């Protein structure tokens, strides 16, 4: 019989190693569907590695893909640390992208050097506002933020589609539901010559470092952690729990909004209703893989991006469906959750 017993103290070693082991385990487990699909497993892994990091182009693509994931991952990680379950990063990303387009297509007269920062700031502000609402409702009235943020995703996406077929539609776009492109001065600079990698990556890395400092070194971060770990004790100790919730919500939404603004200003140049293939939802996975640590988010985002970019390239070469990438990421998440479980419980064969 298998018996499961709580450990007196969580196993720190297991908890630390869990993300890395989970990633490896997920990759190993992916061999099963790969061989079922009739592929040469070793060749498939080699192709995946090559596709993700085998050339400067591959690296650039992986980093480009990781850029929005870092920001949405941070959005989820920061909110989850306060036990504010923001599932709405997808919507906040779109609202950020919409604000970026509104500001970046020349509607605002500003000095040229200020245009790109303004575009990013507009995205952050829009995303932050979109999340401050649900956080306020939760803090004030106890409205479940999982429901509000999740449903807001659909509301916002439909709103964006409406804008793209209405006021914001590109008159030169031949009727396609897409916005005007942002002006060249509002675009984020490219980091590599003739590659898609853009300065949004720098924004993501700086944001990760700032979030790390915020959570571990500041009184605001202290309050966020206290509210997340034990709101009753935090309230009793005089922490304004409601204000912290709204603040964390605004911060989380702003990070997701930055992701959207970065995709518009750094990569696509204009907005369509399919600018994000689920970056917001993937951010939740990234944050969980990272154990809600801001620096871990960078590593987790790189892992998820590499799996997706590598699997795309592998599937083109071998004819295996690229859904394999979703499978690997999902398995990695399950492995991390199992790892967290093993850190808290001991499994015994009796």
């Amino acid at each position, binding site marked *: 019989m298998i018996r499961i017993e709580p450990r*007196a103290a969580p196993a720190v070693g297991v908890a630390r190693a869990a993300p890395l082991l989970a990633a490896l385990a997920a990759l190993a487990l992916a061999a099963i569907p790969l061989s079922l699909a009739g592929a040469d497993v070793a060749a498939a892994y080699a192709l995946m590695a090559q596709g993700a990091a085998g050339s400067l182009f591959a690296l650039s693509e992986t980093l480009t893909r990781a850029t929005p994931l870092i920001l949405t991952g941070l959005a989820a990680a920061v909110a989850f640390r306060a036990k504010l379950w923001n599932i709405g990063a997808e919507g906040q990303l779109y609202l950020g992208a919409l604000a970026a387009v509104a500001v970046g297509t020349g509607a605002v007269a500003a000095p040229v050097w200020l245009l790109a920062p303004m575009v990013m700031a507009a995205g952050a502000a829009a995303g932050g506002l979109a999340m401050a609402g649900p956080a306020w409702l939760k803090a004030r009235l106890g409205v479940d933020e999982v429901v509000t943020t999740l449903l807001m995703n659909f509301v916002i996406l439909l709103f964006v589609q409406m804008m793209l077929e209405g006021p914001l539609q590109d008159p030169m776009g031949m009727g396609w539901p897409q916005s005007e492109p942002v002006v060249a001065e509002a675009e984020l600079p490219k980091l590599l010559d003739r590659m898609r990698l853009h300065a949004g990556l720098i924004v993501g890395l700086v944001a990760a470092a700032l979030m790390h400092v915020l959570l571990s070194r500041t009184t605001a971060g*202290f309050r966020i*952690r*206290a509210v997340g*770990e034990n709101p*009753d*004790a935090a309230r009793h100790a005089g922490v304004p729990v409601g204000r912290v919730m709204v603040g964390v919500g605004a911060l989380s939404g702003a990070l997701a909004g930055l992701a959207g603004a970065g995709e518009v200003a750094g990569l696509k140049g204009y907005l369509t209703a399919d600018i994000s293939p689920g970056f917001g939802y993937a951010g939740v996975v990234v944050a969980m893989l990272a154990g809600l640590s801001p620096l871990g988010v960078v590593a987790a985002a790189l892992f998820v991006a590499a799996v997706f970019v590598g699997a795309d390239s592998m599937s083109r070469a071998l004819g295996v469906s690229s859904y394999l990438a979703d499978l690997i990421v999902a398995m990695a998440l399950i492995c991390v959750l199992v790892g967290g479980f093993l850190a808290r419980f001991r499994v015994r064969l009796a």
Partner: protein
Amino acid sequence: MAPSAPVALRLQGLTKRFGEAVAVDDVSLTLARGEMLALLGENGAGKTTLMNMLFGRYAPDAGRVRVADCEGVLRDLPPGQPQAALAAGVGMVHQHFALAENLTGFENILLGAEPLFALRRGRRAARARLEALMARTGLAAPLDEPAARLGVGERQRIEILKALWCDARILVLDEPTAVLAPQEAEALFMLLRGMARDGLSVIFISHKLPEVLGHADRIAVLRGGRLVGVRAAAEADAASLSALMMGAEPPPAPKAGPGRPGAPALRLVAARVDHAEPRRRLAPCSLTVRRGEIVGVAGVSGSGQAALAALASGLARPDAGSVELFGAQVARFTAAAFVAAGVGRIPEDRHREGVVGAMSAAENLVIERLDAPEVSRGGFLRRGAIAAAAARVLKAHDVRGPGPAAPARLMSGGNIQKLILARVLEAGPRLILANQPTRGLDVGAAAAVSARLIAARDGGAGVLLISEDLDEVLALSDRVVTMHAGRLTEAGAPAELDRGRLGRMMTGDDMGAGMAAGAGAAA
């Protein structure tokens, strides 16, 4: 109990380890039919763990549990299966009652005992049988009220009925009197004795010597997980039992000299709290706590202490009346404002409200004053200063555990309480709200906490002590008020108090006298 009575239960060499720690070490015990056995020991002695093995909550690492079946034949209980224990006739009433709040007493008793899917539930027959059971045992409890509206004693009787309803022949009660007023406890033991005469075997866990001596047939003493002695109650005395329990002479109880009441620290003026739940309501209450005195609030759990504590710690505002701190009327009812005014708060539930378990001991020490210059500068935590201060404070207050950087939840309950007390005292409070400050602590830790409170009083702090432990209130207080159904009644100085009358005031049976004395409370 006659030694010839048949054996109802035999525990043989039970051992349970949690990691390195041995919670119960090779305990063997026999219980006769119709016997009342007291299980005596300090907190952490292994009493509850032992009973949880009997009830199948834990599987023992060694040893076995044998229960007599209806024919009196001893049969082994399979380890770790509460269902098997129930079927064998073992019923358990936990310290923290496990009733579904939204169901009536009747539904709670039937819960789990009736089939999940059945065409006819036979409730009428069940009702008749239950009423017969109540008449036979004398356990009276309202059956049609939702459990949420029941008093503590009533809940407990519902729990006992639930156990008997499942044909329990062995009834285990974990600290049954912890939440009862003295008379309620007496009445409970009378009922249990009556049922024991009819053949029920009873084990009750306690750490109160008088009730153990007064009501048990035999007393089993546990210390550090080992059974250190079994005594017939008729031949035992308090001194020898307490020496057995602690392995040494008990530490002297902290002796408080008289306080020197000074200026008012806390004044409630006809303060009233309305709440949907009766147990959290406060009738218009007036109370003054002066600096340099300890005012003890005695009352049965759920009499409105929570509302009083919330008012005094800044977590709730009165719906009418006013609260004054140090002579100034309070306008902002926030915890932070009260801390800033010099109020130290020891919350009732130290794990839920006292500490953030996942954060370190050092962080928990500074959580109330994050913006103080010694804690942060410009919004950034001064981590070195915090760690240094934590090391010093933990040492000064004798808080033991895995160290200032380890999560607070890894500390024992007693040390968590000392940590909270350290946080309160280091801030130099002028008023201390101590809500159940020693609940669940062993004698040594409780004495340390009490001594610190007395020292703080002697240093000029006013102390509002809320406790369900009447002995503690009488030992520490300069002045006692009782609380019943949200009302405060001035009782007087402990030396002049008669326990019987105090008990009646706590259950509301002495309202006339209480009202008369209540005029003094407002002064």
